[in-house]
């Protein structure tokens, strides 16, 4: 499992849970590269932040790691998860890996659940499906994991449209908790949320990493969120990885101009926020 070939980014221990080497995503027809030769690695219990502007290929990179690219796109490269190459697995094996191995927290919380079913039915169905639990066991597991992310069990009887984005986002985190995922990929989990919900979601993600030793890939253009959780950071721009390394190094001494711009914007915002009399 531990094949410590260091890619060009330095954020590699010798016990990487997930290691991706030179990932490329291209359009099948035109051959246009959307993600260009990105490598990354992450250990259990750690958090990797991926930052970049919208359209920089962050979401596509995530979906490539899951092996769930939209139709018409193809990924190349190697994604080693616990030593197995995800991209070369059969769809069946990949499905067994998803959820339990690598799970996903989607960007648009409001549309991430089937609008016609209660959350309880969807979450317990998933638990029963993946963990081979009985109806009651699955329900109990759902209740306990929801409690861990600060939600009441009543949420289970609600339909998606009756909940807020933050609650749904935490439901997804609870689902990942319940499935016992070893790696969670959170694609912009806080983007569509108000400040309070953002904070709650980040806390829930922190629980995930600290308590369960889950590895987390946090994709965001919100540097604050990444700063709060990530040890390592990868900066994407136009499909290329322009900078990577330890979070504090990257943020304190950004080398690439894109990173500098991102950090400066963030600094300006916090300065204004501090000026108006509040500390984050």
């Amino acid at each position, binding site marked *: 499992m531990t094949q410590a070939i260091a890619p060009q980014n330095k954020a590699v221990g010798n016990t990487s849970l997930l290691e991706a080497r030179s990932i490329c995503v291209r359009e099948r027809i035109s051959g246009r590269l*959307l993600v260009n030769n990105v490598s990354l690695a992450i250990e259990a219990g750690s958090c990797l932040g991926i930052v970049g502007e919208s359209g920089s*290929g962050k*979401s*596509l990179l995530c*979906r490539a790691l899951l092996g769930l690219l*939209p*139709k*018409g*796109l193809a990924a190349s490269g190697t994604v080693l998860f616990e030593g197995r190459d995800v991209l070369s697995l059969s769809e069946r094996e990949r499905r067994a890996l998803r959820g339990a191995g690598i799970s996903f927290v989607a960007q648009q919380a409001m549309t991430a659940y089937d609008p016609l079913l209660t959350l309880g039915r969807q979450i317990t169905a998933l638990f029963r499906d993946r963990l081979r639990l009985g109806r009651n066991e699955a329900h109990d597991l759902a209740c306990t994991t929801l409690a861990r992310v600060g939600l009441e069990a009543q949420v289970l009887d609600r339909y998606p449209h009756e909940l807020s984005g933050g609650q749904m986002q935490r439901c997804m985190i609870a689902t990942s908790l319940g499935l016992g995922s070893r790696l969670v990929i959170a694609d912009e989990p806080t983007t569509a949320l108000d400040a309070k919900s953002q904070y709650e979601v980040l806390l829930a993600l922190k629980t995930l990493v600290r308590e369960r030793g889950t590895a987390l890939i946090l994709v965001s253009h919100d540097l604050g969120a990444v700063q709060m959780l990530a040890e390592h950071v990868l900066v994407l721009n136009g499909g290329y990885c322009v900078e990577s390394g330890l979070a504090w190094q990257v943020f304190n001494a950004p080398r690439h101009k894109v990173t500098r711009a991102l950090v400066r914007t963030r600094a300006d915002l916090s300065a204004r926020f501090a000026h108006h009399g509040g500390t984050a």
Partner: protein
Amino acid sequence: MSARGQLDMAWNVLKHNRPGMAALCFLAVVLAAGLLAPLIAPYDPLAVDMKARLASCSLEHLLGTDHLGRDLFSRLVYGARTSLGLALVIMLVTVSLGSLLGLAAGTFRGLFDSVLMRLTDMLLSFPSEVLVLALVGMAGPGMENAFAACVLARWPWYARMARSITLRFRDMNYVLYARVAGFSRTRILFRHIVPGAAGELSVLATLDCASVLLTISALSFLGLGVQPPVPEWGTMLGEARNVMILHPWQMLPPGLAILLVVAAFNFLGDALRDAFDPCFDPRGTTRRKA
């Protein structure tokens, strides 16, 4: 983008849509054949020849003859004039009537608008087939009545559509700009709104051509529309039906003719929709932006 630019762009897209262009060419050929029927058809479509009844295909009679010895190919060609021509004229009248009323309602609003909209509400609460049947039923069988029934049953769709397009375009920047610049209302109507509305209306009208053709030929088939001996594809099918057990091939030419023309209209309608609405993906799969 100006309305005229939109039309040009749509034509450019349509030019490169092969099924669409093929359908358009096919329809043009059929229509031309119908219009030039006297030159193309080898026989008089009404000439009865009892000696050559129910002849099969031969060089003399390309598609054979019917139960009265009339040449089927000639009847088919003349039928294009009746069936396709009738459908096109009906749609022309319907679209002009409906969209003029709708444009007027949307432009001038007021009492006229509300009365017209209540009327369309009422007419649209019937399925168009029932309305056509009812109107033909009240007025009696016959081509003129079927014609009027088709127009009456369909104009409300166009009136509503034209009205809503007008209302939408009224608030668009370039139309607002024209109003600010002090152009008269009729000028705005014909310079800006009409070209803009043409796209959506033509898509619906093309698809509706197909259904009008089907309605007319169904009515004629039942004897409620075009009356024999006028050659019309539905009427021809109705006559073929009487001899279907011994001479089933008689059903093929008129049936296939209707099928092909309707399919061509559908193809063309889809192509037009793609041309006027570049965002609409015909396969229903819009690749999500990641």
